Every structure is written in structure tokens, then in C-alpha cells.
């Protein structure tokens, strides 16, 4: 399990050491690192689901939690590890071709792997402070990566993202300080036990608010979403794919789920706040996406809207809703990274992100065109793609839990998503005017391979609904969320 940190950290520093060698060597090393991470994450998921609802604990230097720190993987973190490292693998493949237009490619690769190690660290951390440190590693490398092009817009986006992200981290750190002064422990299991012993302490509510502010800002839930459209539309395409695909989900949604469901014990109040934030994000993200002429900004606002679905499903908090949340999170990771990667190819072809100047992508670059169509169909909920099923499950879960209004809003936003995607993408993909296509550069072969693989995954995602696959892949994560209050007992029990 240590490998989830060792591999990306080693890769990151190897990139710096090998800075002077050719790009080819570093591309191969980064590809190998990404492949091994993806393989290990799948093995970990299999191991976590094989020992039913069990957790895997690795401690350091013989000190066991709650006194010592350890790495803990349960069903939820194993599932997230698979999502993160799968997306990372394809992004690494894609950037091997795409990043050639920038100078200093090794800096990109080094920062990229630092970000992966931060994200993986958040997923395996079992105490508050390690969670914070890894979160900062991921966030700081993300600030740098957003500014990678060092153009005026990118610097501005990076500065605004960095200021907001740092304020969020400050709130989280203040929350950790209050929590430590109350419980005298940092381990998540220890905190969970201390809070379960004295549940109505007012300080817990105060800390909940601090954490919710911090993590909702990291997850870009409305009204904390302002930075997302800047940062995600200015970053280089592979980084937008990582930020939208996994970073906000791990730093925001996963952290919220872990802290509020496993540690604090989900109270009705928190669930209502999550529902409110989710519905606000769904609607506001959808409305803001209308009429965007910048292709990446359209995708960025659509991310706000789709993250709203996940937050809503977490707030509804029935087993079916958790299943929908986890499945939608996976689908959105795959599809949104696919779309952002394609936006990079399109930007490379037309040298613009303005949708009104882009036309005839399908005719000129069939792979980019058709995979974009598949991505847009999946995200706007067209059967048989994964996005359709996950939205359907969330809508059914809302109905089942007795929230018909929420279900209606979810249906409405889904229709809205389809409307803005097709209004924006149809002219760009099928339009006849091929005037600007003279300047088209060929898309690198490996970039096509990467997006095709992601498109196949998006199409194959519904297979995870089959009972056999579902049990192997997703049930562990759902169990971890449903039995959140059992987290402390399981972790501490797994040690003995």
C-alpha cells in the first residue's frame, strides 16, 4: 500500500534527475509508473472486496492507531484509488503526445506525479493531519500546473485558485486544531470514538462548519465554485482533465464523505446542507454553462453541475443513493477527462477554444469527433452510456427516499445538460465550414489511443451494474458509506 506513495514520488524525482535526457526516456518511465499504479489500485480493490467490508491497515514503525499513524484502505478509498489511477494512466499517455508543444516537459511530469502522490495520500491517510498534508501537496502542485503555460490568463487563474485554495486550507487546518483540542487525538478512528462517546458537543458542530466550508470550496460546490471555471479552463488540457476528473472529487467529495460519514457520523443537518449545496450546484452550474462560447469553460461549468449530483446523492444517504453517488462519480471522472482531453486536441487543431470558430471536427479528425460525441452523450444521460444509468439511479433513490421534488430537479437538470451540450457541440462537431481546417495539425497517435480507451471505458461502465461485477467493484465503497459509523471499530479491529 505504501507503493501508492512511493511510485509517484519516485517518478516525480526521477523526472527531475533525468531532466537533461531525452523526452523519450521520461515518457517511458512515467508510462510505466502510471501503469503500475493502475494495476496496484485494481489489485487493492480486489483485495479490499475479497475480504468482505474489511479494511487494510499498514502501520509505521510498530506504532498502531490511535497513537501511531497508519495507511488505511477501505472499500471507498480502494474504489477511489482505482478511479484516480485509471484516469491518471490515460492522462499520462495523452500528455506524452500533447505536452510536446511546451518547453520544460520534465517539470510538468514531475509536478504531475507529485499531484498524484498527494491525491493517493489523501485516499490512504488515516489521520487528520496526514490528510491535510497530502491535500496541500496535491493542491500546491495543482496551483503550479494551472500556471504552467505562464500566459497572463493562466497566471491570473492560478493566483485566484491559489488564494481561494489557501483560505480553504486555512479553514480546514483551524478545524483540525479545534478538533484536536476537543478529542486529543488525530487518528480518524480515535476522533470517531471520542465523538461517538459525547455526540452533542457544540464544538463538533463548529468544526463541521469549518470543514464544510473548506472542503466544499475544494469540491467547487456552489456558492464556492468561482475559482473552478478560471482554473479548469486555463490549465493545459491534461491538467484540466485531472483537476475536473479526480482532484475536486478526492479533495472535496471524498474528504467530505470520509469526515462526515465515517468520523462525525452523518447527522440529518449535514445531509440537508449537502442536499442544498448539491441542488444549488446542479442548477447554477447548468445555467452558467448555457451560452458559454469557450469549450473548456463549458466543460468546467458542467463539472460544477455534475458534482452537484454526487453531493445531492450523498445527502439523500440511502444505500441506493450512495450507489448512485459512487457510480456517477466514476462515470463523470472518465467522461469529463475524456472531454477535456479532446478539448486539448481541438485547441491544438484550431488554435482556439472559441466554439463559434470551431467546425467540422468529425470530418477532419474522426477519433476526436466521435469520442467527443460519446462523452457528451454519456454526460447528458443518453442510454446506454454509464451517465444515463448513474443519473437514473440517483433519481430513483430520490423518489425512494421520499423527495419527489429533488427527483424532478435532477431530471430537469439532466435535460438542461443535454440541451447545452448539444447546442454547443453540434455545430462544432458536424458544422460544414472547414475554413480554419487548413491550419490543422495532425493529432499525435498516442493521444488518440488514450481518448479511445477512455471512450471504451465510458461505454463499458454500465457493465459494472451486473450483479457479479457490482459486487466486485462498487459494493465495497457503498458498504463503507452505509456503515460509516462502523469505521472506527473496523479500523481498530483490523489491527488486533
Amino acid at each position, binding site marked *: 500500500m505504501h507503493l501508492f506513495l512511493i511510485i509517484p514520488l519516485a517518478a516525480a524525482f526521477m523526472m527531475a534527475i533525468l531532466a537533461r535526457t531525452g523526452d523519450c526516456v521520461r515518457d517511458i518511465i512515467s508510462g510505466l509508473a502510471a501503469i503500475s499504479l493502475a494495476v496496484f489500485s485494481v489489485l487493492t480493490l480486489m483485495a479490499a472486496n475479497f475480504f468482505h467490508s474489511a479494511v487494510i491497515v499498514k502501520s509505521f514503525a510498530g506504532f498502531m492507531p490511535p497513537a501511531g499513524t497508519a495507511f488505511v484502505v477501505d472499500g471507498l478509498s480502494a474504489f477511489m484509488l482505482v478511479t484516480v489511477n485509471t484516469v491518471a494512466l490515460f492522462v499520462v499517455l495523452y500528455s506524452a503526445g500533447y505536452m510536446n508543444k511546451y518547453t520544460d516537459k520534465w517539470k510538468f511530469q514531475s509536478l504531475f506525479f507529485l499531484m498524484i502522490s498527494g491525491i493517493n495520500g489523501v485516499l490512504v491517510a488515516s489521520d487528520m493531519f496526514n490528510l491535510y498534508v497530502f491535500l496541500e501537496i496535491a493542491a500546491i502542485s495543482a496551483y503550479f500546473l494551472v500556471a504552467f503555460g505562464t500566459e*497572463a490568463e493562466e497566471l491570473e487563474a492560478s493566483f485566484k485558485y491559489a488564494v481561494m485554495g489557501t*483560505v480553504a486550507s486555512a479553514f480546514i487546518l483551524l478545524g483540525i486544531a479545534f478538533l484536536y483540542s476537543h478529542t486529543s487525538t488525530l487518528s480518524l478512528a480515535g476522533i470517531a470514538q471520542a465523538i461517538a462517546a459525547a455526540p452533542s458537543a457544540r464544538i463538533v458542530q463548529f468544526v463541521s462548519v469549518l470543514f464544510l466550508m473548506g472542503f466544499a470550496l475544494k469540491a467547487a460546490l456552489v456558492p464556492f465554485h468561482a475559482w473552478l471555471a478560471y482554473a479548469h479552463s486555463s490549465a493545459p488540457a491534461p491538467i484540466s482533465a485531472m483537476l475536473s476528473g479526480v482532484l475536486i472529487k478526492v479533495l472535496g467529495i471524498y474528504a467530505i464523505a470520509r469526515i462526515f460519514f465515517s468520523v462525525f457520523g452523518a447527522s440529518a443537518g449535514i445531509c440537508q446542507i449537502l442536499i442544498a449545496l448539491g441542488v444549488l450546484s446542479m442548477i447554477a452550474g447548468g445555467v452558467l454553462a448555457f451560452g458559454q462560447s469557450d469549450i473548456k469553460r463549458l466543460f468546467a461549468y458542467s463539472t460544477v453541475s455534475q458534482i452537484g449530483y454526487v453531493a445531492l446523492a450523498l445527502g439523500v444517504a440511502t444505500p441506493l443513493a450512495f450507489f448512485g453517488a459512487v457510480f456517477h462519480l466514476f462515470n463523470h471522472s472518465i467522461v469529463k477527462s475524456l472531454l477535456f482531453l479532446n478539448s486539448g486536441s481541438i485547441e491544438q487543431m484550431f488554435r482556439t477554444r472559441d466554439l463559434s470558430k470551431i467546425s467540422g471536427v468529425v470530418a477532419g479528425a474522426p477519433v476526436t469527433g466521435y469520442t467527443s460525441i460519446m462523452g457528451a452523450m454519456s454526460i447528458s444521460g443518453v442510454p446506454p452510456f454509464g451517465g444515463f444509468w448513474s443519473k437514473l439511479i440517483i433519481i430513483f433513490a430520490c423518489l425512494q427516499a421520499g423527495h419527489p421534488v429533488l427527483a424532478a430537479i435532477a431530471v430537469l437538470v439532466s435535460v438542461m445538460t443535454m440541451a447545452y451540450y448539444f447546442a454547443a457541440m453540434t455545430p462544432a462537431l458536424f458544422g460544414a465550414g472547414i475554413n480554419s481546417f487548413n491550419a490543422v495539425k495532425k493529432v499525435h497517435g498516442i493521444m488518440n489511443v488514450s481518448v479511445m480507451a477512455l471512450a471504451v471505458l465510458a461505454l463499458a461502465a454500465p457493465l459494472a451494474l451486473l450483479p457479479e461485477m457490482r459486487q466486485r467493484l462498487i459494493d465495497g465503497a457503498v458498504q463503507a458509506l452505509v456503515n460509516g459509523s462502523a469505521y472506527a471499530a473496523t479500523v481498530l479491529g483490523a489491527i488486533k
Partner: protein
Amino acid sequence: MVTYLLCLVLFSVGLYCVVRKRNIIKIIIGIGIMEYAINLFFILIGYRSNGRAPIFADDQAVVNMVDPLPQAMALTAIVISLAVTMMLVALAIRIYEKYGTFDITKINRLKG
């Protein structure tokens, strides 16, 4: 008790500075103040009145020591905030080269 409250007041001063100031250097200073307040808060949490330094040795009994864990956390937080501040200042320099101003309201080429 007053010390803790003053510490939170300091945090609020930093937050006010981040939210209200237009000069990006002042915003960075505000972030510095916020992080300083949190580090101070960590040290205050660990403090025990008349406590001694938490050094463990054979001839020392483990009584009446200040809590060493918040000190370790404060150290780590200082290192992280150093990295963040350094990056923000570097960005500020590059932004000044591109925009010719430190005024955040004039740095608005991104719209929407």
C-alpha cells in the same frame, strides 16, 4: 481564554485582509497572517500552565509537560505555508510583468 479569542481575532484580521484588500501583495500578507494565527493557536492548544519542555529521558518523569504534538503540527504547517507564500509571491511577480499592476480589480482578463 482571552488569549484564544485574540488568536481568533488575528485569524479574522487575516481573512479580512484577503477579502477586502485590492493589492495582491497585501492579499498574500493576509494569508500569512491567517496561517500565523493558526500556528499560534496550535501552540496555545498544547500549552499547559507551568509545563516544562517535553523531553523524554531516563531520569525524567512524564508529568506536567506541554503537549508536543501540536508543536510538531505547527512546524509542518509552517513549512507548508512557506511553500504556498513562495509560490504566491512568484506568481505575483509574473503577474506584475504581464499586467503591470498589483491591483486585483484590474487583473480581470478572465470573464464570466
